[in-house]
Every structure is written in structure tokens, then in C-alpha cells.
């Protein structure tokens, strides 16, 4: 907590009250009065001011806002870089005016199915192909992915369609093989705080899509991005994919408020995954539209030609025709918020 902003109507008494409050915590106050508002800078070691104390300043009379300059993440912060980061992957910018859509199956199952899906999502306007080769499954007995074979199929599909690919890494030992094929490395929600893995992708030159942990705060999420960036890889995008709440009607609760929050806190591109966020096919399209309205820079959506037969997450995958319809509808939402699909 470093700057306290008071409105134009703040009285001398209210200002004195804030100054006293700061001094009682061993801090000095630097007051600068403008015509619009009065700004009080807190000078001293403000890193010891707790969040509760910060709230008590926020609640004081006359206070409009309290801005904390000291954030635990540095490279990821908006203060570090004012302009939005735009990551360009095979000529496609992520984080600019145009919103790329990444689509594909949850898991790569076989060559024919993947190629078929890739061609269909490409025709509908998707710009990236997603697909898991190494799958983090809740059950050790569920399908675990095809491994390198799956990566080869993804690369073949890229060859055929021109769509760059994104796939998940689960183990630092797979780094070399994944690097060989993928265009974007995905860190899944369950690995968001796997710090070894974060450092490993940090020394890669491939862009990283970092999914939010199931029960992670935005601050923890940004700290994970900081781990990757500290190793020199600044091409990190953050992907909201739903968090754990008490609600059971959806698989997770898609925290779309995270999108504008991140836009304030960080310069990194923000991606939304409505498929995992809701876990239910009928809810994917509305939340995809809401994500764009909220300011998302990209979407990642699961599409399968035969969801009933899908080996993983079939119930949240869109059918190609549903995806094509959604892509059409997204255009007008994007236009309404000054973006393009």
C-alpha cells in the first residue's frame, strides 16, 4: 500500500486522519493536492502493511482508492510494462486486436480423428489446434494420452492445415520431445505450482500458456508466471479455466472477473477456456461470448467430431457444427467490444 487517493471533496480533517494513521504505523506521509483529488504517498517500508490494514485505509472517510505499488510479482506486473504483451506464434499475434481461437480435442486419439477435427475447426475459423498427448487424468486408470505418437499426429495435422499447435507438458523430462513438435507449451491447472516444471519451460523459447490452478488465487497464478519469466521466457499467456467453488451445476466456476482483474494487474495476454470452465457442452457457447465481452485475448475450446466416443472430456466438447455456429456468433460480440475474431 503506497498511494492513497482522496476525492476532491476530502476535508483537511480527513487528510490529517490518514496522515496520523500512516504515522502510527511508522510511515511518513507525502501529500500532493491537485484540483481533482489529493494523493497521499506512504513513505517507508510499506511491505509490512497487511492486507487487513490496507482495507482499513480504504474504508477511511474521504478515501477513493488505495494503490499498492509493492507487488510480489515484478516482471508480470502492469507497472513493469505498460503496453500489452503481444506474442506472435507462426505469424499469428496473441494479445492484439484480433482474437485467436484455439480449438481441438481434449486428447489426441488417433491420426484420422485428429486430422478430421483439425480440418473442421480450421474451416470454422480457428487459428490454433489444441490437443493433449500427455494427459493429466484424475484417475490413474483413465486414458493417459498417446505420448510422442500424439505429438507426431499433431505435427501432421499442422502440416495439413497450417494451424500451429498447442499441447500440454506434464513432466520436465518430456521437455525435449515436446519442444520438438509444439508451437505453444501448455502448463495445465494441476501443474500451475509445479515450480520445477515452470523453471523448465522458462528456459525454453516457446510461448507458454499457463492455466490457472483449480484453487489458486490470481496472485499465486501471477507468481507462477513470474517463475517462468524469471528464467528469460517472457512469452507467457494466462488461461482462466474455472476454479473450485461450492457450485455443482457446472464442473468448475468460470471466473470471468479474473479477465478484467488480470488486465489491470498484468501486461500478459489473457486466454479463457470455457470448455473446462463449465464442463457442459450447452454452456460453452454463452461463456465463450461472455469471455470475449469481458476482454479475453484468446479462447481455447474443445471440439470433437464424435463427443460421445471421445476418450476424454466428451461431455464438454462441441461438435464441429456447433463450433462453426459459435465462431459466427463470436464475431458480433467481438465487434461490440472493438475486437475482431
Amino acid at each position, binding site marked *: 500500500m503506497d498511494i492513497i487517493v482522496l476525492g476532491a471533496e476530502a476535508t483537511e480533517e480527513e487528510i490529517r486522519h490518514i496522515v496520523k494513521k500512516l504515522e502510527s504505523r511508522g510511515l511518513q506521509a*507525502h501529500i500532493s493536492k491537485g484540483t481533482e483529488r489529493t494523493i497521499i504517498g506512504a*513513505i517507508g*517500508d510499506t*511491505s509490512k502493511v497487511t492486507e487487513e490494514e490496507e482495507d482499513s485505509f480504504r474504508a477511511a472517510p474521504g478515501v477513493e482508492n488505495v494503490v499498492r*505499488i*509493492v*507487488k*510480489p510479482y*515484478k*516482471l508480470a*506486473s502492469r*507497472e*513493469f*510494462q505498460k503496453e500489452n504483451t503481444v506474442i506472435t506464434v507462426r505469424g499469428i499475434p496473441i494479445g492484439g486486436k484480433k482474437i485467436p481461437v484455439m480449438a481441438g480435442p481434449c486428447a489426441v486419439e488417433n491420426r484420422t480423428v485428429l486430422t478430421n477435427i483439425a480440418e473442421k475447426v480450421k474451416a470454422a475459423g480457428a487459428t490454433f489446434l489444441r490437443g493433449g498427448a500427455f494427459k493429466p487424468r484424475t484417475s490413474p486408470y483413465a486414458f493417459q494420452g498417446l505420448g510422442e505418437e500424439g505429438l507426431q499426429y499433431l505435427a501432421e495435422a499442422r502440416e495439413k492445415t497450417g494451424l500451429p499447435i498447442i499441447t500440454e507438458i506434464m513432466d520436465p523430462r518430456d521437455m525435449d520431445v515436446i519442444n520438438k513438435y509444439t508451437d505453444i507449451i501448455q502448463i495445465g491447472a494441476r501443474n500451475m505450482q509445479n515450480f520445477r516444471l515452470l523453471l523448465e519451460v522458462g528456459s525454453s523459447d516457446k510461448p507458454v500458456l499457463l492455466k490457472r490452478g483449480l484453487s489458486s488465487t490470481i496472485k499465486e497464478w501471477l507468481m507462477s508466471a513470474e517463475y517462468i*519469466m*524469471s*528464467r*528469460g521466457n517472457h512469452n507467457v499467456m494466462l488461461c482462466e479455466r474455472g476454479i473450485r467453488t461450492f457450485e455443482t451445476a457446472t464442473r468448475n466456476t468460470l471466473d470471468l472477473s479474473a479477465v478484467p482483474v488480470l488486465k489491470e494487474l498484468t501486461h500478459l495476454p489473457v486466454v479463457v477456456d470455457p470448455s473446462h470452465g463449465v464442463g457442459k457442452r450447452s454452456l460453452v457457447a454463452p461463456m465463450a461470448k461472455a469471455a470475449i465481452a469481458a476482454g479475453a485475448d484468446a479462447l481455447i475450446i474443445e471440439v470433437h467430431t464424435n463427443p460421445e466416443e471421445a476418450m476424454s472430456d466428451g461431455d464438454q466438447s462441441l461438435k464441429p457444427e456447433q463450433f462453426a455456429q459459435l465462431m459466427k456468433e463470436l464475431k458480433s460480440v467481438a465487434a461490440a467490444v472493438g475486437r475482431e475474431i
Partner: protein
Amino acid sequence: MTFPKTAILGVGLLGASFSLAIKKKKLCSHVTGFGRSRENLERAKSMGILDIVSPDPASACRDADLVLLAAPAGSFIELIKQACPAFKKGAIVTDVGSVKGDLVHELEELMPPGVHFIGSHPIAGSDRSGIDSAHADLFRDALCIVTPTERSDPPALKNVMDLWASLGSKVLAMGPAQHDRVYAAVSHLPHLIAYAMVNTVSDIDKSYLSYCGQGFRDMTRIASSSPDIWTDIALLNRQNLMEMIALFRENLNRMEEHLRTAEADALRQEFIRANTARGDIGQD
């Protein structure tokens, strides 16, 4: 990101190379310098490294946009104490020291309001020291570690990272404590061993040194490094360094044991382990 006036405290190999590098990149219009030896500073001026020779740290730093600490790390605190009354608001202070740890926190503490310290460690030292070895490309393709803390100012951090990147360095960020542990292992321990190795052979018989081949030269090149600089580094990173020495001793003990028992396989395994691990760091 430009620093019209840059002050360099400590004008040796790194300080002088830094000055040449930022001048070459046109990131600054003039450089002031302060150091222990007036003669060295005057010479630096005649060589075009400095524009102004300052009589004390404070006058070097007055109105400076960027202050670089490039003296032996043991003198940083004293230099900053003398210089800081002259710092202008918005100035950025950084350094080239090989030890970070508590020093970074102490330096942060000394900064007046509005002045930001960000620790830097360009991995670009040399067994040579002094301004005669300085050159504008010293930092090109070198690694540079910056050591932000919880309190670091993000825009200042960005400026410092951009600065090193524009000099051609690959810039990575690391916490100060982690930095010291890493560099105790990969730099400070090897320097100590190099010094000890030369002393060992010279204790056995000084004349033996004249028979040495490339292997000995490779291993002990860094034993020619500046004793002043390395005394400061070793003492400032004493705790980590002692731990690394203990670990090194364990490795030596194990090899000694294999020699005693004449276990060729075990010895070979140690060598293979090192071959493999060294393969990962790439070519020299």
C-alpha cells in the same frame, strides 16, 4: 530508456567496459567516474572512458540518472552512504557485484525515497582486471542475472533489464539468496579451488609449474583474478562457500577412497558422471 548522465563508482574492467558499451549504444551522453586512484581515473578520461573525473562519490552521482557500482563489493555500502545525499529523485542504482544476498537488502534500505536499487550481476568478469582490458563488447552474449526483491520497483527493474539486454546480454531474474547459492557453486568455489590448486603445486615445488600443460592452465586461469575483488566476494558469500567446500571435500574424499582401494570401476563412474554433466553446459 536512456540515462543522459551515468555515474560509475569504481572504474576497473567492468566499470570501464560498461561505460564504453553504453556510449557505443548511445544510451548516455556523459559518464562521470569516481575511484580510489586519481591517476587511473585521469587515464580513463584520456582514453575516452570517462567524461568527468569526480573527486568523491557524491559529486559523481549528482544529477545522475543511472549509478553503477563497479568497485569491489565490500565497498558498496560505504560508497552509497557517501553518494546518496546527492542522488536525484528517479535515479536508478545498480551494480556488477558477484554477491547479492543481504547486500541487496542493505543497499535497498539505504536508498532515499524515489531512488531505486536493482541488483545486477553480469557474468562477464575475467582473470584480467583494470581499464586496459576494458572493451565495449564485454557484455555481449554474456549472461546477466538481475536480483529483484519483494520491494523492487517494477519500472526500475524493467529499465535495468532492458539496459543489460541492449548491451547484448541474456538477462535472467533470480532472488538474491538463490543467486548467491548458485554462484557459490559455479563461480566462487571454482575460484577458491583454482587459487588452492596453484598454491598446492607451488608448495610442492615451484619449479614444477614450468612443466604445466594446457590442462593446468585451463583449470587455473581464474587464479590470476584480482585478489581484492575475490577477497570481498569470498567473505560476503562465506556461508554458502563453506557449504560448497564441504561438498567438494566429500567428492575428493570419495575419489581418494577409490584410489586407496584401487577400484577402477568406481573411479571411472565418477569420471563418467562428470563427463555427462559437463556435456549439458555445451561448448566453451
